[in-house]
C-alpha cells in the first residue's frame, strides 16, 4: 500500500463486514511515533482464526477466509521497528462486549515508514460505501511544531440528518470539508 490511509480503509472494511455497528479509527502522533487503533464491536474472531490472520502462510489449509489486509499492515508497522497486535472476542464468548481491536505502532523517522496519506478520503470512502454503519474518527498530533485534533462522529451527523442517508453527495462533501478544515483551521481567522 502506498499510504497508511489505504491500510486503514482496507482494515476497516473488515470491521464493517464483521457486522460492526460502530468502528473507531484513532491515529495518535507523538514524538516520532504514530499509533493506529481500529476498534469495532463486530462479531469478533475465534482464537483459531485470530492465529491465522497475522500470517497468511501460517498453515496450508485452503479453507481460510482471511486475506492479506492484516499481514500488509503488520509488515508496514514492523518494517519501521514497530509492531501490530490484534485482540478479538467473539459474540459467543462475550455477548456484551465483543469485537476486534487492531493496534499498530509506527516509527515515523524510519526510512521505511509509509506516510499516512489522504486519511480524509479514506473516511469519506468508508461513509460512502457504508452509510448505515457508524464511524468515529480521531486524529491527534502532539508535536513541538504541531498541535492538531481532528474529530468526527457519524452518530452525531446521523442525528442532525434525521433520516437523510449519510452517503448523499452533499453530505459526503460536507464531511470532507468539515475534516479538512479541522486540519487546516478556519480560513477567516488567519
Amino acid at each position, binding site marked *: 500500500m502506498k499510504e497508511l490511509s489505504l491500510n486503514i480503509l482496507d482494515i476497516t472494511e473488515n470491521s464493517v463486514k464483521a457486522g460492526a455497528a460502530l468502528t473507531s479509527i484513532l491515529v495518535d502522533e507523538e514524538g516520532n511515533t504514530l499509533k493506529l487503533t481500529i476498534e469495532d464491536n463486530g462479531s469478533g474472531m475465534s482464537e483459531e482464526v485470530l492465529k491465522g490472520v497475522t500470517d497468511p502462510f501460517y498453515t496450508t489449509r485452503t479453507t481460510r477466509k482471511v*486475506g492479506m489486509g492484516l499481514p500488509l499492515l503488520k509488515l508496514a508497522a514492523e518494517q519501521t521497528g514497530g509492531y501490530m497486535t490484534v485482540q478479538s472476542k467473539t459474540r459467543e464468548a462475550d455477548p456484551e462486549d465483543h469485537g476486534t481491536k487492531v493496534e499498530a505502532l509506527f516509527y515515523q523517522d524510519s526510512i521505511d515508514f509509509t506516510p499516512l496519506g489522504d486519511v480524509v478520503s479514506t473516511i469519506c470512502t468508508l461513509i460512502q460505501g457504508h452509510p448505515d454503519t457508524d464511524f468515529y474518527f480521531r486524529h491527534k498530533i502532539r508535536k513541538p511544531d504541531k498541535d492538531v485534533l481532528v474529530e468526527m462522529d457519524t452518530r452525531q451527523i446521523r442525528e442532525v440528518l434525521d433520516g437523510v442517508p449519510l452517503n448523499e453527495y452533499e453530505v459526503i462533501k460536507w464531511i470532507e470539508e468539515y475534516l479538512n478544515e479541522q486540519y487546516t483551521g478556519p480560513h477567516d481567522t488567519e
Partner: protein
Amino acid sequence: MKSLAELQKIKARMQDKVVLREGSGDVRVVVGMATCGIAAGARPVLNEFVKDVNEENLSDKVTVSQTGCIGICQYEPVVEIFEAGKEKVTYVKMTADKAKEVVEKHLKGGQVVEQYTIGAYQS
C-alpha cells in the same frame, strides 16, 4: 468553519429530494474495494465516479457502490456497470481519468468505452 447548522440546511434540502428519487437507480456502478482493489488504486476511482455522477446530475438514474474482491485481482481496479436489460460491462485497470471518461461516454453518452473493458485486455 463547517457547522452543524449548515448540515441542517443540507438535510432540509435533501429530505425533499430523497422522496422524489424513489424507484430510480436503473444503472449500477460497482467498484471492487477489497485489499487487491484498494492497493491497486480503487479509492480515487470510486471517488471520481461519485463526484462525476453527482456533478453531471446523473444520480437519479446511476448509483455508485462498493463491493469486495471480484476475483480478477490482476486487473484491479475493476469497475462493473450493470444496466437493466443490458449485458454487464467490466472495466479493468481503471484510473480516475478513465473513470471520468467512462462517466462522460458510457453513463452520459450510452457508448461503452471498449478499450478499457476486460475484453480489450484479454484479446
